[in-house]
């Protein structure tokens, strides 16, 4: 998020414009999303029963994060430097650590 804030034009190119490009660029975007899903999926290791949450959950969360970032960039949030990191962390933490821990993330101060 800090990188996006520092360079909104590049953020728009990497997150928004890539969707209108060829399959090569979109494959790279998908690989990035898979990497994000891998990180999120690590949340299963925090659980007593890791198998109780599926890999699919991590992929939905990664998609939710990407979709939110995409929408916010298109809406000019990045240029206005409006922070929404806490909301992204909330959705990433929720399936693994529960509502209370996720809500705690909403209280974390912005990066700046």
């Amino acid at each position, binding site marked *: 998020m800090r990188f996006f804030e520092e360079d909104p034009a590049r953020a728009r190119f990497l997150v928004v414009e890539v969707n209108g490009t060829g399959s090569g660029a979109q494959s790279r975007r*998908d690989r990035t999303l898979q990497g994000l899903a891998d990180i999120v999926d690590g949340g299963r290791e925090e659980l007593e029963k890791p198998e109780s949450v599926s890999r*699919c959950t991590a992929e*939905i*969360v990664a*998609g939710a994060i*990407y*979709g939110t970032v995409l929408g916010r960039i*298109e809406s000019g949030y990045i240029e206005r430097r409006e922070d929404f990191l806490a909301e992204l962390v909330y*959705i990433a933490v929720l399936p693994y650590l529960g509502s209370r821990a996720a809500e705690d993330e909403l209280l974390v101060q912005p990066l700046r």
Partner: protein
Amino acid sequence: MVDQVAKGTAKGAAKRSTAKAGEPTPPAEASPRLPAGRHGLPREFITQNQRERIITAMVDTVAERGYNATTVAHITKAASVSRRTFYEHFADKEACFLAAYDMVADHIRASMRAAAESFGDWPQQVRAALATMLRFLSSEPELARLCMVEPVAAGGEIAARHRASMQGFVQILKAGRPEHSGSRPLPAATEETLVGGIVSLIVREISAGRTADLDQLLPDLVELILAPYLGNEEAERLARSDAAPTPES
């Protein structure tokens, strides 16, 4: 008309040839090419027929080539209409795509609303609406690509229309806010984030050629969607419940 377009697509043709006893019987091919020369058909009928053929051609061509690589020439050839006829109906390729998109999106939205209204309690409304959408998309691959994948790639006005269309599901989710029992209010963008996750996963599954299996995502999607409102345990219980919910009479 969405049914007619679906029947006019390659998938629709396949479905007609494999229809089983007891299933709804699709009518004959939608909007066939009109006979050449003088045929005495009313002008209104001809115009409607042409429009449906153009939209059907748009769906098929976009499914084959993608929106960005599709040209008006591809569409007119597939629809067996002249360029002049195309421009009598649509200002440009984008307008034609939006007409097709609106038709499919309106159909999905109305189906989801009707499914949701069959239930009194919110969690089952969410499940029913989502199940309806996934069932439609998995049974209509060309229309699934048209309304879920291509708008993201097309960008501009089409992508904006797609985002606005997704607001329908956002509203269904927002109705669940009174169910939230957490110590702090839900983040303002919870619903947009959840819908973004659903859309992103569906797009990836379609792009990977797994459109027919979309309805198998239902339990995972329902669980994640309900979790912010009901808590993880209750969300999991409802999502993994084997018994299909029964609509209220």
